[in-house]
């Protein structure tokens, strides 16, 4: 009773929206009413895409769900900063798709090379064409290798971004391990928006932890295109307390990264040029390439979507999830990608039945670690308002600034529990 009362005022609006959507997509009747087996293709097997594939099949077993993902093994980004700092084995980051396949999802270990939104087909690297009734794009973010002078794909082999977990993560770890004590590590951070901004400050913290414990004569310089960031007070307090070896240079102090020289091993900012023993350059980003090829990315490089269904505002019958999407106030995080995928799966299952998607509500909660036993979080509760995800006022926010160390230690435990729980939900 309670649930219905709560959703009733907006139900009419949804029906109107659904009718408009059905007209725009040229679907005279719901697919299931026609006796068809609706075909859903999901591109991208990360936190968002793998969740979507699994929950679509779970929500309605009659759906034919194909997950297109080139890699047989997924390497998770959350907690990869601990791998870089030598605190965690890379194997703890790796997950396979066997359990998702066992749920009845067809896994195509191929690269999606094209999408035809008119014909509703996806082309795979081996030339196969997959038809779809609804396509879910979850391609994550790609580095923009044309954005920071000197920083192209080849440069990332010398100055890793490590913003996609896997070989890059291990490369940065090896470089830190090989560095002589006394060397300077330089990080370069981009302006918003990009994948999981708090993870940049978590990484700075954990690299400082590594240097403090293993290379005490070394220091870390963080060149930042921003003056402000999420959980800033918590990070800065922790740095003051734990890491005198960490120097953060915000944009207002000339920290904006302006270019790199991989031969000289230098990173330049507005005011200065820094010689690096190890450089970790996180470049500006955009939605994964297939989103652009599908026509779902706008001039910003990211994908505008409807908040109730995550359907693209540019191409009908294509839904965009995770880091690639412009989801209003919702940040680009693994947690948010997983939640968006569950909301989208429920909406898509309803759409193919000819029903109206329910109005969703959204929680994001991101943990950051500044040391193995020192964590804090930022949470947000969101709801669609006028076609945008807006934060519910009075809710969410960061961990208290003045909490005792036991509180930080408990949040570090919850952070670990979150990783185990979410990866179990998706891959377990």
């Amino acid at each position, binding site marked *: 009773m309670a649930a219905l009362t709560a959703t009733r005022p907006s139900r009419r609006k949804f029906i109107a929206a659904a009718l408009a959507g059905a007209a725009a997509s040229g679907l005279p009747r719901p697919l299931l009413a026609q006796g068809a087996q609706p075909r859903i293709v999901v591109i991208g097997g990360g936190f968002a895409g793998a969740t979507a594939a699994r929950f679509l099949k779970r929500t309605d077993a009659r759906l034919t769900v194909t997950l297109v993902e080139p890699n047989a093994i997924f390497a998770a980004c959350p907690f990869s900063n601990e791998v870089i700092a030598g605190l965690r084995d890379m194997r703890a980051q790796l997950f396979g798709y066997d359990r998702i396949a066992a749920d009845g999802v067809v896994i195509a270990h191929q690269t999606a090379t094209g999408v035809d939104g008119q014909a509703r087909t996806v082309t795979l690297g081996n030339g196969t064409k997959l038809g779809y009734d609804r396509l879910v794009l979850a391609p994550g973010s790609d580095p923009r290798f044309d954005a920071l002078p000197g920083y192209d794909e080849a440069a990332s082999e010398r100055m890793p971004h490590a913003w996609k977990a896997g070989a890059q993560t291990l490369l940065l770890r090896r470089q830190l391990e090989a560095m002589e004590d006394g060397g300077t590590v330089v990080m370069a951070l981009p302006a918003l928006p990009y994948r999981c901004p708090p993870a940049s400050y978590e990484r700075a913290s954990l690299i400082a932890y590594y240097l403090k414990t293993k290379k005490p004569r070394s220091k870390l310089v963080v060149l930042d295109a921003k003056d402000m960031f999420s959980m800033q007070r918590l990070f800065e307090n922790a740095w003051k307390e734990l890491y005198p070896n960490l120097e953060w240079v915000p944009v207002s102090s000339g920290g904006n990264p302006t270019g790199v020289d991989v031969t000289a091993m230098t990173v330049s900012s507005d005011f200065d040029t820094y010689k690096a023993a190890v450089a970790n350059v996180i470049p500006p980003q955009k939605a994964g390439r297939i989103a652009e090829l599908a026509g779902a990315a706008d001039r910003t490089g990211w994908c505008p979507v409807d908040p109730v269904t995550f359907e693209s505002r540019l191409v009908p019958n294509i839904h965009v999830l995770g880091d690639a999407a412009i989801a209003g106030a919702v940040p680009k995080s693994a947690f948010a990608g997983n939640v968006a995928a569950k909301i989208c799966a429920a909406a898509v299952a309803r759409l193919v039945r000819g029903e109206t998607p329910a109005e969703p509500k959204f929680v994001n909660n991101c943990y950051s670690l500044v040391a193995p036993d020192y964590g804090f979080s930022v949470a947000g509760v969101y709801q669609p308002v006028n076609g945008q995800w807006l934060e519910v006022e009075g809710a969410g926010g960061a961990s208290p600034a003045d909490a005792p160390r036991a509180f930080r230690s408990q949040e570090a435990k919850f952070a670990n529990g979150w990783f185990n*729980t979410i990866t179990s939900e998706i891959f377990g």
Partner: protein
Amino acid sequence: MKARRAFVVGILLCAGIVQAAAAEAPPGAASCSGCHAAKAGVDTPVARLAGQDPAAMVAAMQAYRSGQRPATVMDRIAKGFSDDEIRAIAAWYGAQR
């Protein structure tokens, strides 16, 4: 136990106008399982919600929201939910196994 069953049946009846809505998580519930494991056996200090007493879950959320119950993050999250939303989520998780 009896009260819980009556509550769940009530929800099912109310939701009956939209077939399959009973199986669908109410608004907000999809977010919980990022931290509260759906399955048993996950290595985490966070409690599972499936099968818990809905009345106890409602009381806990209201106490988090008012600040009466200490928390690291649930106080901040609970503030974003109304009583009706909390009751729907609690009933749904109470019916899960």
